[in-house]
């Protein structure tokens, strides 16, 4: 997994590439934790995410909660296979996905 992070006036954009699994999810979580306090909003671009496991879902839930009192967490460019994972777990109802 590689993370490409951009910031503009407190709006953080993450372009994530590869697999968000048990091994890589902690890195993403640590990165988001590092900016959650100062971030006004968080946008995750999933265009290049190939795979997500429950370890990755935990990070999304954490990010969603951390941003819920601010500009919120938004996911964009979610592929079909990942979308199906969000649907079977009920995450598609919780997360803001465009």
């Amino acid at each position: 997994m590689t993370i490409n992070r951009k910031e503009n006036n407190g709006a953080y954009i993450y372009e994530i590439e590869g697999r968000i699994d048990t091994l890589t999810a902690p890195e993403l979580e640590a990165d988001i934790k590092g900016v959650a306090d100062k971030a006004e909003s968080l946008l995750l671009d999933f265009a290049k995410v190939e795979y997500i496991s429950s370890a990755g879902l935990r990070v999304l839930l954490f990010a969603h909660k951390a941003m819920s009192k601010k500009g919120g967490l938004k996911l964009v460019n979610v592929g079909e296979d990942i979308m199906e994972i969000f649907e079977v777990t009920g995450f598609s109802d919780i997360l803001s996905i465009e």
Partner: protein
Amino acid sequence: MEKIEITAATDKLGEVTEFIDAQLEAADCSMKAQMQIDLAVEEIFVNIANYAYAPNVGMALISVDVDEQRRAFITFEDSGVPYDPLAKEDPDITLSAKERQVGGLGIFMVKKTMDDMLYEYRDGKNVLTLVKKI
């Protein structure tokens, strides 16, 4: 049937996934089924790594077989504490994020994406088999 015996530790997940993917690719598995199987394998293997032998470390035996009807059978064996993941109650996925506990979600995802899941405790071993049409 191909198999590997490997230390049940989360840092071995990469090796496990590589082994599984190699078998599935050799069988011309669809991308979607492969992703779902990878997901299921991760959830099961990480469970074994975290709980089967805790606080000690033990081994896991993982095998892959594809039958004539193109069903993949992925079997995990460990000699840890008896644990039937199928006996666990499903999480309530209708709850809001605030009320949500993420525990139990992994096994739930496996149940939802695999065609079948079989568990037995045999000869002092947990034997869990995932079945998925590829």
